[in-house]
């Protein structure tokens, strides 16, 4: 069980002005693992994920992929690293001027310099995997929220990432659409994708996570397997948070 981690982030700290949004947060993840970040809004989950691929520049902290440290000042290394770490955003961030197909193709043709035909074929495959074969010609404005999020997952998968970061992928969706996106994520999990995900879906977390990380006020309060964090947490704050979430969304057991 002592496999080296695929991705490791250590002592990530981020301040906005005087407010410390993330304080010395560390995390490491091995191949095929799924770790889930939970915590109240504003606890630093998004910041943590965005610091991991340097969309937000951390004030302090280091990140390694496959044992190699990523130096964000090396633009070329950074861009190569970002190709290997797929990111899913809460509000999808599909490219609004491109069809679903073109959204998936563009990273392949412009970043990976793949030929147009090959890129098209791969993009079709990825969209097929997320069940959107019939919607490839639609623009984001013509897709439902769940479909948009699935396109964005296909777009990230097309780059063949080693790790995926999912930043509250279902928070902007209404309840019916959440299921279709969670199903895709479960599929990824079953196929062995390594993932770090923040979410408020505790039921989902308890079902699929290898480990749950509870974050509050930028500090990692408690880490452990789902059964422990969700049902027998040690810290007072974790107990409060989990029972409140269960009141809202119902108990999974």
């Amino acid at each position, binding site marked *: 069980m002592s496999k080296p981690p695929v991705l490791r982030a250590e002592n990530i700290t981020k301040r906005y002005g005087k407010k410390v949004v993330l304080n010395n947060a560390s995390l490491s993840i091995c191949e095929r693992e799924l770790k889930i970040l939970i915590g109240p809004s504003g606890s630093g989950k998004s910041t943590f994920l965005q610091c991991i691929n340097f969309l937000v520049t951390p004030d302090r902290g280091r990140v390694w992929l496959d044992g190699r440290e990523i130096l964000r000042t090396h633009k070329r290394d950074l861009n190569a690293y970002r190709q290997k770490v797929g990111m899913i*955003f809460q509000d999808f*961030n*599909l*490219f609004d*001027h491109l069809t679903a197909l073109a959204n998936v193709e563009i*990273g392949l043709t412009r*970043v990976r310099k793949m030929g147009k035909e090959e890129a098209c074929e791969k993009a079709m495959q990825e969209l097929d995997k997320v069940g959107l074969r019939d919607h490839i010609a639609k623009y984001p404005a*013509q897709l439902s929220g769940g479909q948009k999020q699935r396109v964005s997952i296909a777009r990230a998968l097309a780059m063949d990432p080693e790790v995926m970061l999912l930043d509250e992928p279902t928070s902007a969706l209404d309840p019916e659409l959440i299921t279709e996106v969670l199903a895709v994520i479960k599929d990824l999990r079953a196929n062995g994708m390594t993932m770090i995900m923040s979410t408020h879906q505790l039921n989902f977390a308890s079902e699929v996570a290898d480990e749950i990380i509870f974050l509050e006020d930028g500090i990692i309060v408690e880490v452990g397997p789902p059964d422990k964090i969700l049902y027998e947490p040690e810290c007072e704050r974790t107990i409060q948070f989990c029972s409140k979430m269960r009141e809202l969304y119902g108990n999974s057991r």
Partner: protein
Amino acid sequence: MGEMDFIQNEVLPSLFEGLGTSILLIIPSAVFGLVIGVAIGVFRVFGNPLTEKLASTYVAIFRGFPLVVQLFIWYFGLPHLGIYFSPYTASIIGFSLCSGAYHSEYVRGALLSIKRGQLLAAQALGFTRTGTIVSVILPQALRRALPGCGNELIYLIKYSSLAYMITCIELTGKGKIIASETFKFTEIFMIIGIFYLVMTTIAGRLLQYVEFRLEIPGFEHYGA
């Protein structure tokens, strides 16, 4: 009917010649102006502090100096520094730089309207900054800038009439010469006015067509 004959035989051929010159001034100035405008707009929004400052200064100067004064500097002023431009070249330089300054404001506004998430998503895929701007931001922003830039192109058609002030005799210049020879100011300038009206109408239609061709779901213009 002598009047009509005179206009048909003497005035119109001369004005058409001027119109040709006007068109030769407008088209390159429009193209250069747009290119400059997009570049300056991008520098102002995505540039480093230095290029941002330079671009802002450029806009301040070229929007701040009256266009006639700019033309005088290009044509009458620079020869004192040993730089000579033909009236035609000086006009194109003047128009392009002035037009670019105005375009850049429309482009800047459009760039600022693109949500940050678009930039983040491209970066997360491994796009370089330039790649993000070229492949993701500009295609969206230019669609939004089009109505404003179209407005500027229409202006350009009309302010091309200033070229005659630096002896580049285009439509208005021709008209002024004939008018002062014949004293038929009203007729001749009415005709010239109609010429410009036709040009701006055609340009307006073309722009509408371009907007229509580039329209995609999510970027359409609502309303009638």
